[in-house]
């Protein structure tokens, strides 16, 4: 592999966004959003459809106007820079391969538009065709390529111009499930190899976890949590993040302070001790207890939440149990499958919480009460949903 495609000789670009505002007509869909993306980082914007993630990406790309705030690549303000001059590589959801040009012409297109030395265009294109393992397809027309191959052409074309920043807008959403997993590994490897600052948009949380250095979880135009996949999963900043990333059982509880320890009373009267509550939150209050299915343990003794098994699903590695507490709440429990027989529906069981892993949120769900949350979001939302900033009409215009 040649040097020009490796990460050493490329200056890494930091992206800074201050108080970004996006309006469609009278509707404000993003108001005062700030974000810092490190050089060489694989950064993902993750959220449900209509949350404004693609809008933000297109503002960085220059295809959406910016109604307020400042966008910086290193020290250069790019707000008024023509999209053609931002030196961005972009990969589109539908690949946007030029259907009237063959693979090589597609890849060379960007080079021909720049002051790239004519005699080197062919070699440069070859380098990236090889990197994406499509060099043998160079003379094919796009109509003769499969979805995965088109995706590789799109990526080669975007990277070939050696852009400062790589932007990807749901690049895998048109591929089938198996190819999606294969391509996301390829994308991650290439990004690692080239070392380019990358902003990636997806609504698929598993995909985001698989590729990202850091993830920004967005909802209704507001960034909820910015952090590593591990931190976002284990210590989500609020209830929205906890429920959007992975599955969560949500229970009402009451926090009491007894002898300096945080004791949480759960629905059936069961009490659990949390050792990692933030000092300033150590006070009597109603809380939301968020327990992931693998953080609930099935016990045989008298300790724990009294519950009855409704149904169970054997999935090989794990077995899922659908259970209702005797106080009525339905919960889901995942256990590693054992060689013994699975628990029959109708069986009465006891559930214990793994209090090291479970999360506590304040009553409205907007704050995590535990230590260890690492949220790099620079605009901490006012409420869990952040919905106050966005009208229903604004949401509609996003979709």
């Amino acid at each position, binding site marked *: 592999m040649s040097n020009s495609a490796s990460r050493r000789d490329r200056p890494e670009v930091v992206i800074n966004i201050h108080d970004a505002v996006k*309006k*469609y*007509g009278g509707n404000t869909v993003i108001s005062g959003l700030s974000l810092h993306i490190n050089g060489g980082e694989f950064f993902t914007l993750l959220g449900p459809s209509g949350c404004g993630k*693609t*809008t933000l990406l*297109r503002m960085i*790309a*220059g*295809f*959406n*106007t910016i*109604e307020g705030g400042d966008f910086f690549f290193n020290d250069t303000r790019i707000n008024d820079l023509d*999209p*053609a*001059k*931002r030196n*961005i*590589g*972009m990969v*589109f*959801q*539908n690949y*946007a*391969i*030029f*259907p*009237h040009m063959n693979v090589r012409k597609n890849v060379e*297109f*960007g080079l021909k*538009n*720049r002051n790239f030395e004519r005699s080197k265009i062919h070699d440069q294109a070859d380098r990236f065709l090889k990197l994406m393992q499509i060099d043998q397809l160079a003379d094919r027309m796009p109509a003769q390529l499969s979805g995965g191959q088109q995706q590789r052409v*799109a990526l080669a*074309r*975007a990277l070939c*111009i050696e852009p400062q920043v790589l932007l990807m807008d749901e690049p895998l959403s048109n591929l089938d499930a198996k190819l999606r997993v294969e391509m996301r590994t390829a994308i991650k490897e290439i990004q690692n190899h080239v070392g380019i600052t990358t902003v990636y948009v997806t609504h698929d949380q598993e995909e985001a976890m698989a590729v990202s250095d850091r993830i920004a979880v967005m909802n209704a135009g507001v960034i909820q949590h910015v952090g590593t996949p591990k931190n976002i999963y284990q210590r989500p900043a609020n209830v929205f993040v906890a429920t959007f990333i992975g599955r969560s059982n949500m229970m009402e509880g009451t926090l009491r302070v007894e002898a300096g320890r945080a004791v949480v009373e759960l629905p059936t009267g069961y009490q659990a001790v949390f050792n990692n509550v933030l000092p300033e939150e150590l006070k009597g209050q109603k809380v939301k207890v968020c327990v992931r299915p693998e953080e609930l343990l099935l016990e045989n003794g008298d300790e724990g939440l009294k519950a009855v098994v409704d149904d169970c699903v054997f999935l090989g590695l794990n077995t899922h149990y659908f259970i209702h507490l005797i106080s009525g709440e339905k919960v889901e429990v995942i256990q590693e499958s054992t060689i013994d027989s699975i628990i029959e529906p109708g069986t009465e069981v006891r559930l214990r919480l793994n209090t090291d892993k479970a999360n506590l949120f304040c009553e409205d769900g907007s704050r995590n009460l535990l230590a260890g949350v690492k949220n790099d979001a620079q605009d901490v939302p006012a409420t869990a949903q952040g919905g106050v900033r966005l009208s229903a009409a604004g949401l509609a215009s*996003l*979709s």
Partner: protein
Amino acid sequence: MTAMTETKRKFEVWDIITWGFLALFVLFLVYPMYGILRQSVFAADGSFTLEQFNKFFSTPYYSSTIINSFEVTIAVTAVTLLLGIPFAYFYSFYQLRGGKFLFVVSILCCMSAPFIGAYSWIMLLGRNGVITVFFRDVFGIRLPSIYGFGGILMVQALKFFPLVFVYMNGAFKSIDNTLLEASENMGCTGVNRFFSVIMQLSMPTILAASLLVFMRAFADFGTPLLIGEGYRTFPVEIYNQYLGEVGTNHNFAAAISVIAIVVTAAVFFVQKWATMKYNFSISALHPVQKRKMKGIGGALMYLFCYGLTALAFLPQLYIVYLSFRNCDGAVFKPGYSLVNYQYAMRRLLVRSINNTLIFGVVSLALIILFAILIAYLVVRRPRPLNNLIDTLSMLPYIMPGSIIGIALVIAFGSQPLALTGTMTIMVLALVIRRMPYTIRSATATLQGIPISTEEASISLGAGKLKTFLTVTTPMMANGILSGAVLSWVAIVTELSSAIILYNNRTITLTMSTYAAISRGNDGLACAFATILTALTTVSLILYLAISKSEDDIKL
């Protein structure tokens, strides 16, 4: 999320193009239309009067033309549907041997010059037609007259049923086989399924085809002129009032034109309203498997398809045959020679061909250029002014050709913009006539191209103009080409506006043919008509050879 909504917009080249088109449309479309309106309500002395409209509606001699036109056009539309839908059904759902051949021949029929069908039927079944004479002399039977309502109906139905055929073919192709299987699964088969599923799914297309046939038949000028005789229709009356041999009245012609436009506009909007009820689109993932034809039913299908095509096309071949017969004036004599062609050479044949080709190439180039630019403005820059351009560009769709001709004469017949008698005004009329069709197909093509392809180009460093030229335009090329070839044929065979605008210097093949027919030079007329038919046939066959599939054809 892909819409380019912009609050603060920078000035760009497209703004100049927008204003350029507005200026062109106001000058060459709105101003001439205003001219017609003005002439219809202002008398020669400049006073306002509704006398012309009053005259039209109070005199049955005139007002009957509107009823006649309606009667015959509705009948034609109904008959074309009755012929075209079964034809398309057999073609799409059964393995019809020689189907491709039938397809090409039927296209040739509807693309022929507007009056050649009428003329050939007159040569066969007219007062001195061969068949009429044969029956009279051999059997002593007097065949019913071909002139009037029946003749117009027969000629127009045979000419326009291929429009329905091509449209319905597209609709049937887009029906997913699983829909048919599902209906069969629920016990709906055979004729029941044809009417309750297949026809319902094709309803938007049936309405679109009906509108097209209605507009074409309503505005058709050549057929009723030759074969209508006492059965007087709208376009002929306008022509007579404007250019007729006795008692022309320009104000009255203008008034009839205004009435005609109101009628076609009303039909246009009624069709749009009816189409709204069928607001769905279908596309086939699993195309229908063509079945084999069997037994008597199969034989009848073959008889229908081949019989219909033969009936529509053979009369035109008869004209070709006649063109090689010896002829002296209006009388065909035994023996074959090229005497008619030699005569044609002395009668401006070369000039006619030259003019036809030059007008065709120039008009087509302009139409394609305008269509690409307007499609881009409408689809990629959706702003009020550009929507206005879109609406204005559709105006000629509802205007019969002879009215466009008259409007141009009124607007550009005198200084400061005296264009009558020039090539410019001929090209102008052709561009105005055909542009709506090409704009429609260009707009539809561009709407099917995701904007992200252009954004990819821009993000790869190509400027807006370069992106438009190297990415947008080539991607639109296929869609435009299919429309352009058929526009070319329509331009070459244009009669209704040309008949008002042409003179000796700007005569075309179509006009030469018409002139020969009207002077009774049958041999000469057949020669001109044959050359015209050859030109359209070669164009269409070239196009079909180049294009990948016949499904691209847009009429």
